[in-house]
């Protein structure tokens, strides 16, 4: 089970509205390399992991990704909060406004809705952990692209934190993968 904690994992300090960055940032909620996909990927894969370390790690990182979903959602919410319909339309979000208003909806930067096709879960722990390593790198790259598109110190600060987490997760997944290889070599597993 999960319980909710009424706090953000990392503080978000958005000073002014920024429709352009909100449109880009949303991909880290519901895009192909976003936090929602990451959470669903790890929390689905954990059941068929063969080692104690991998089961725990996928549970814990999957849970942390849900906290990242909340950070991204909070940023987008605050960036759009005081905008008018006209401003949204001028910034190219007229159709977005018609369908969702200023709501948070899991989609990428082009408005494509989130899909489970962004993730895989194969019951092969070596395959799944390799996917996880790649997913962390893809998310890191996306955060770097986002960082290149803004000078806002509040947005940059949170994005730097999230980028750093991708690197730590990559490191831990690598260790879990080595452990799975060891198990495979120590007994004829398949």
């Amino acid at each position, binding site marked *: 089970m999960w*319980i909710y*904690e009424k706090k*953000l994992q990392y503080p978000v300090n958005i000073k002014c509205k920024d429709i352009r960055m909100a449109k880009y940032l949303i991909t880290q909620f519901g895009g192909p390399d976003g936090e929602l996909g990451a959470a669903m990927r790890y929390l689905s894969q954990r059941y068929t992991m063969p080692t104690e370390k991998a089961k725990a*790690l996928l549970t*814990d990182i999957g849970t*942390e990704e849900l906290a990242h979903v909340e950070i991204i959602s909070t940023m987008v919410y*605050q960036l759009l909060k005081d905008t008018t319909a006209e401003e949204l339309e001028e910034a190219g979000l007229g159709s977005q406004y018609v369908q969702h208003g200023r709501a948070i909806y899991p989609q990428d930067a082009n408005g494509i809705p989130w899909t489970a096709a962004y993730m895989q879960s194969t019951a092969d722990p070596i395959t799944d952990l390799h996917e996880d390593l790649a997913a962390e790198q893809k998310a890191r790259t996306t955060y770097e692209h986002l960082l290149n598109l803004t000078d806002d110190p509040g947005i940059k600060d949170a994005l730097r934190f999230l980028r750093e987490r991708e690197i*730590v997760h990559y490191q831990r997944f690598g*260790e879990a993968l080595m452990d799975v290889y060891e198990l495979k070599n120590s007994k004829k597993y398949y």
Partner: protein
Amino acid sequence: MQEMTRKDLMRKIQEVEFKALDLNLYLDTHPKNMEALMEYNRCVYELEQLKKIYEMKYGPLLNFGFSPSQYPWRWINDPWPWEQIE
């Protein structure tokens, strides 16, 4: 700790909880690292103290039986994490 602002106290909780989270992930793949484990347990204790102070002042941080509430039921009170404090 008692006289910190809400924002500063939350920031302190976020710092200690982040340390605990990162140690937790490290321990998942290094369960026999005694030093990391002792540091993790220190964080647990510090976090407990900080959250107790925060919850007395501002209401429950956790739902479903993990935090007590004063009257009336304070879980529903604004602000939620996506809303700016102040």
